[in-house]
């Protein structure tokens, strides 16, 4: 019973956020805790709001998100900056994939 009500509250909060998004026209990344990804051509990718590094090699970068993972594939990767919630990757980016598990 307790568990159920907690779940209900969570669901209620989620729908409230959804409603706010629709009606207040706030950026979604702020409201929904989603990653914001900025790319400059193929050479730069900037990911905000990630939750940590899972794997990193010169061909692949796997980032943990709040929900699921983000997989970036390419060549000659170099992390230019890494901060608790931001990462700037340089290299030649071929693919950006969302993995939902």
């Amino acid at each position, binding site marked *: 019973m307790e568990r159920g009500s907690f779940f209900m509250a969570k669901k209620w909060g989620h729908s409230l956020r959804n409603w706010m998004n629709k009606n207040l026209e706030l950026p979604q990344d702020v409201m929904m805790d989603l990653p914001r990804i900025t790319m400059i051509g193929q050479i730069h990718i900037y990911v905000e709001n990630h939750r940590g590094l899972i794997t990193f090699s010169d061909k692949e970068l796997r980032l943990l998100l709040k929900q699921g993972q983000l997989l970036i594939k390419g060549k000659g990767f170099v992390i230019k900056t890494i901060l*608790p919630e931001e990462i700037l990757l340089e290299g030649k980016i071929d693919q950006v994939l969302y993995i939902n598990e």
Partner: protein
Amino acid sequence: MKNHWVEYLTGIITVKATGKGLERFLNKLMKSGISIWYIKKHGLHTITFQISLKKIHHLRRIVRGSGLKIEFQRRAGAPFLYKRLWKNSGFVLGVFLFIGLVLTLSNMVWGIEIKGANPATEYQIRKQLDKMDIKIGKFQFFTKELDEIQAELTNNINAITWVGVELKGTTYHFQVVEKDEPKKREEEVPQNLVAAKKATIVDDFVEEGSKRYSMNEVVKKGQLLVAGTIGKEDNTKVVSAKGKIWGETWYNTDVEIPLETIFQVFNGKEKEKHFLNLGKWEVPVWGFGKVEFKQYEQEENTKPIKFFKWELPIQVVNKTYREKEEVVRGYSEKEAIQKGLEDARKDILKRIGEDGKIKEEKILQQQIKNGKVKIKIAFTTIENIAKAQPLKQGDTE
């Protein structure tokens, strides 16, 4: 994107980390707020990244439990640059010392060459130069200007008529023209002696020629005194008449002496300032503060700094300020007359020549007007009135 120039100032180290669980390690670093950048993966178990020198201690703490091996690879940034500079400072110092040495040596006097003077004169010139502080090993900034040296040499050494002063590089060249003092040969030209002015003859000394006057005779200007023809009518000979005929002459002189005269004199107080002239800027080097003289004269002496033989666009400027003072000289009436007489005497002696004499002087008139004493003096003098007059060919008289 972030430029890491702030970190550059405190120093940046490239770190190589080897081992398993590199991603975990990176996450840990991230969470503890240690910023790293330029992360590269080399193979499976190696990464390199850059980190601020200040965060090295934090890095070590995190590494300790992780089972990774780290290695410091490259050091960059200001602290390391500074260290390297310090290491090479000997070389830099050497370069500066060398430039300094060349500058110093280029601005010294290294030679004094005197041409066209005989040994005696040369010795005199060298002595005079010593007095002016122009010696080998002295700095050129403190020597006098060339024209001053020239004037001082020509004034103080009688044996030279003219001296050319030139400064070529570090050597002074003196081109001396000595006075050729020819012995005065009295030319044996047939001549008469005539009176130069109206006078009464008081004394004489005739070496050659025949007298045409008598003692105490009053002669007119241009009157023949000693004829250059001697001998009797048929047997005449032409000679150069020579001798001195002393005549009494008269002069009237007017003198005006102001009772009060204002003079501008230097009172000996002076201030020196040294500057370095860099283009438009004058950088004071020595001698600061304002010149507190009410009236002063300023003397400026500019010397370029030389590097080898080239002149740099930097000059050494010495300025000397000399205080002037107004001095009022006052004469009493008596003093003024005395002074007037003295002046008049000097003036007369100049006019009658070295061997002339003043026989008598008499103040004819004196008056004070507009702060001035006016006196009229009559002088009776004795001077040589003989003047040579060449005889023309065929002249008998």
